[in-house]
C-alpha cells in the first residue's frame, strides 16, 4: 500500500466530507489515521467544522454573536 504523508491525508479527510471516497482512498486514509495522532486530531477538527454549519442552523439556544460589529 502506498504510504500517505500528512499533507495528502488532510486532502482525503477534506474530500471525505464532500463526496464518498473510493475504496483505495478509504483504506489509505484509515491506515494513515491509525498511525498518526496529529492527523487523527485534524480529522476530528474537520468533522467539527463540518458539523458547525448544521449546529448554527439547528441550535435552539441563542448564539453569542456580536451583531453590532461590522462584517469586516
Amino acid at each position: 500500500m502506498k504510504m500517505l504523508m500528512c499533507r495528502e491525508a488532510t486532502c482525503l479527510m477534506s474530500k471525505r466530507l464532500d463526496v464518498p471516497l473510493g475504496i483505495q482512498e478509504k483504506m489509505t486514509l484509515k491506515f494513515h489515521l491509525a498511525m498518526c495522532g496529529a492527523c487523527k486530531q485534524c480529522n476530528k477538527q474537520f468533522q467539527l467544522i463540518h458539523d458547525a454549519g448544521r449546529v448554527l442552523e439547528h441550535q435552539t439556544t441563542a448564539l453569542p454573536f456580536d451583531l453590532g460589529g461590522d462584517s469586516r
Partner: protein
Amino acid sequence: MSASPDSAHDAESLDARQRRLAAVRPRLLAFARMQLRDASEADDVVQEALITAVEKDAHFAGKSGYETWVFGILKNKILDALRAQKRRGRWQPWEDDGVEAAVENQFQATGRWQELARPSSWGDPESTLASERFWQVFDSCMIALPENIARIFTMRELMGLSTRQICEEAGIKENNCWVILHRGRLLLRACLEKGWLTEADS
C-alpha cells in the same frame, strides 16, 4: 410585522410563530453575514426572508421544524443574492493572495506536519460546539478567510450545497472545488486552534 392569516389558520399558533421568528433572527443574521460577508446585504436578505416567512405562513406544513423552514427560505434568498453578486462582477477572479503559503506553512517539505502546526485536541466536540467562546472565535475566523475561499466554503458548509451544485454556481471544476475546500478547512482549523485553545488555556 403584520400578517393576514387566512381564517383556517390558527391565530394563536401564528402569534407563537412570530415570536419564534423574532427569536431566530440573530441566528439568521449571523448565518447570512458569514455567507455574504456584507453586513447591509445580510440585513436585507434576512428582512426579505422574515417577510416571506410571514406572508407564506399558511404554507408552513409542519413537516420540518419551523426554524428549519425559515432557514430554507433564507438560503434561497442568499442564493439569489450570491447570483446577483456574481452578475455584478463582485466575484473576483481566483487569486492566490498568499493562501498557498499559509496552507503549505502547516507542513514540512516532507509532507509531515510542522511542529508548531500539529493539530491538538479541542476537547469534547459537543461541549466545544456549546461554548459561547468557540462561536466567537469561529465567527472571526470565518471573516478572516480569503473571500474566494470563504464563498465556496460557506456554500458547502453553511448552505449545504453539494460540490456539484457549487461548481455550477461558481463556474469552476469539481476538482478545483475540492482543492478550495481543503485549503479553507486547513486555514480555518489553524485559525480556530489558535483562538480556541489560547482562550481555553487562559
